[in-house]
């Protein structure tokens, strides 16, 4: 199946190049931030997370409320960009040492703590519009279609990477994630039992990364090892010597 995807992407790439040449050399050049994981990057048009676009990430299961995995996933992405990062939120429960552990330096991040969700949207848009930033992150409960379109346009205009962490106050509110938005990609990161160690203890954290929607591409599901010290993820080796994985209830493609 991967092979089929790869060829179709090659065809698509060719078409895109043709369109780009028709649009003229001065047309906007969209660059991407690859994950460095070939299987994952292949699912994304251009081979990575598009700059100048909005990307939504939510936690799965209980993580929908605390958004811990989503925050760390985003932290890893932001760590691999260059320049300042603006992080807008309403409740500051982020523990920065954890983000430092995925390679995001505290000097790079400017937090904007807002009283209301609307203020988060306004600051997020302001920062996206500003340009020259590595990434702009917002923690949002709701992301209405109109707001997301505005944000997407702001991101496109300045070429800034816009990252939205969707987290809810209650588990039941997570169904809001089904509503359409203008984001270029939508992810759900759920925790999985950690990678087994030969000794007692908790191994490298493992996530189920579901690419639920991506513009001009197909979704997919990946079992990934959590971000390392440089914010890089990797595909978790799905080999047989893991007896603890047999009772796993997740369906993985």
């Amino acid at each position: 199946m991967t092979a089929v995807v790869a060829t179709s992407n090659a065809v698509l790439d060719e078409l895109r190049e043709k369109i780009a040449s028709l649009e003229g050399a001065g047309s906007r050049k969209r660059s991407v931030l690859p994950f460095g994981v070939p299987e994952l990057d292949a699912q994304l048009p251009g081979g990575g997370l598009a700059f100048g676009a909005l990307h939504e990430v939510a936690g799965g299961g209980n993580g929908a409320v605390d958004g811990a995995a989503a925050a760390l996933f985003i932290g890893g992405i932001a760590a691999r960009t260059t320049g300042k990062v603006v992080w807008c939120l309403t409740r500051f429960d982020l523990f920065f040492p954890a983000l430092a552990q995925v390679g995001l330096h505290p000097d790079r991040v400017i937090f904007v703590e807002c009283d209301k969700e609307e203020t988060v949207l306004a600051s997020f848009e302001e920062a996206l519009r500003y340009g020259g930033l590595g990434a702009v992150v917002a923690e949002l409960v709701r992301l209405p279609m109109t707001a997301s379109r505005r944000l997407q346009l702001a991101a496109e205009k300045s070429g800034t990477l816009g990252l939205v962490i969707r987290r809810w106050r209650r588990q039941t509110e997570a169904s809001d994630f089904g509503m359409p938005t203008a984001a270029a990609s939508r992810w759900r990161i759920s925790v999985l039992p950690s990678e087994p160690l030969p000794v007692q203890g908790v191994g490298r954290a493992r996530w189920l990364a579901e690419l639920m929607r991506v513009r001009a591409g197909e979704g997919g599901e990946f079992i990934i090892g959590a971000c390392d010290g440089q914010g890089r993820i990797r595909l978790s080796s799905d080999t047989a010597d893991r007896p603890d994985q047999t009772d796993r209830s997740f369906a993985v493609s």
Partner: protein
Amino acid sequence: MARVVSVFLPTLPTDRIRRTDPSLSPDTPLVVIARSGSKRWIAAADRAALELGLRIGMPAAKAQALVQGLVMIDADPAADLAVLERLTLWALSQYSPVVAMDPPDGIIMDTEGADHLQGGEELMLSGLVNRLRGRGLAARAAIAETWGAAHAIARTTSRETVIVPRGETARAVNRLPLSSLRLPAETVASLRTLGFATVGDLAAIPRAPLTLRFGPEVGRRLDQMFGRVAEPIDPIRPVDLVEVQKSFAEPIGAPETIEKYVSRLVRQLCLELVKRGLGVRRADLIVHRVDNTIQALRAGTAKPVRDIAWLTKLFRDRIERIEPGFGIEKLSLAAIIAEPLIEAQSASSLIEEQVTDVTPLIDVLGNRGGQRSFRVAPVASDVPERSVQRIAPTAAEDGATWPLNWPRPPRLLARPEPIEVIALLPDHPPVSFTWRGKRRRVKRADGPERIFGEWWKRSSEWVAVRDYFVVEDDVGERFWIFRAGDGVDAETGSHKWFLHGMFA
């Protein structure tokens, strides 16, 4: 309605003398003596003197007889006024675009639309009082909707700061004594003779007989206090202020027109600044309306600025907040704080990657209400909740970060939540735990990571210990839990378990 801050400096004359003469001990009673012909009386007394029973207005000879070792200094109203003026100019640069002296012992300012730069009204007032105290000045401050109310409350309360919420002015002033109405002493005395004791008493009766008996002053002061008559504050202006203004023959009101003139004023101001080699740190836009009221917008920047687009943006975002009323007759733009600005070449090399300066963005975000921007920086503390501090977004980047040897959760609960566990003491992780009503079996665990209390901060942490564990349940959710105490010695903690954070 405006938000008016009245600052009352009850012992300004004596505080001034103490500041200039540090040899005076704070315990020595000190009074200031005023004289008129052969009469000498106490014009001001410090706290120590007041505690000894001396009162303002008491004859000097009597005071001298009552208190031994009383320091008496001649009054110098001009010097007091000079100090007050200096303080007012300082308040202008720090707190609000509209500040005026309220002699002999007060400062009045309108902080509508300016308190957010200080973190809100409460922080602004307490900060103001604390900073004045740091300069050796006793002060009390009140904020209300009118000059009259704030003035009265600051002078009658014993609390250092009072905030009267919007719409509660009448309730707050009804029980204040008549003397707080800023009326001549004779009027107050005769009103008392007539049986009036509080502002509420006076406000409740028909106005006509009062006006017949005492003239229009009583009614005017009442109306000013309740906000029925505007009492504009005529802002003080330093001599060397960089200010540009535009008067309109025909009052303007449309937002687009205001915006047009604001950007023109910004351009003019920048030209003025170029001439003097200055950049603006704090700029005030003062809107004079035809009904003789003033509205002000203040914008602060993180570093000296002379950029027209940047400054215009800071004001443009908030032009919608201007209420033109019946029209605006004058706009004035002043650089309240200006600092030398040296133009520097931004990129020194073509090869170097250009680093975007985010200060303009921080300014835009910081000048909007309802949000705070900051960075975080490490603190040398093992206790997780103390290991992070907030610093200014423009603070110098020192490259410091946390030690990365132990895993840390991306989400930390504001306060650790108690959990019920089944665990073997002393250093085994729990077998299972119950958090928020859900029981979880622990599949894997790491720990303990022992964190000791910081006895140099609190003596109760002398022997305190926390043992942190990373635990993972059946489905792979990872948590950060700890046991208060080392599991052996009861003195080190309660041996209760808590959940402190969520791992990804």
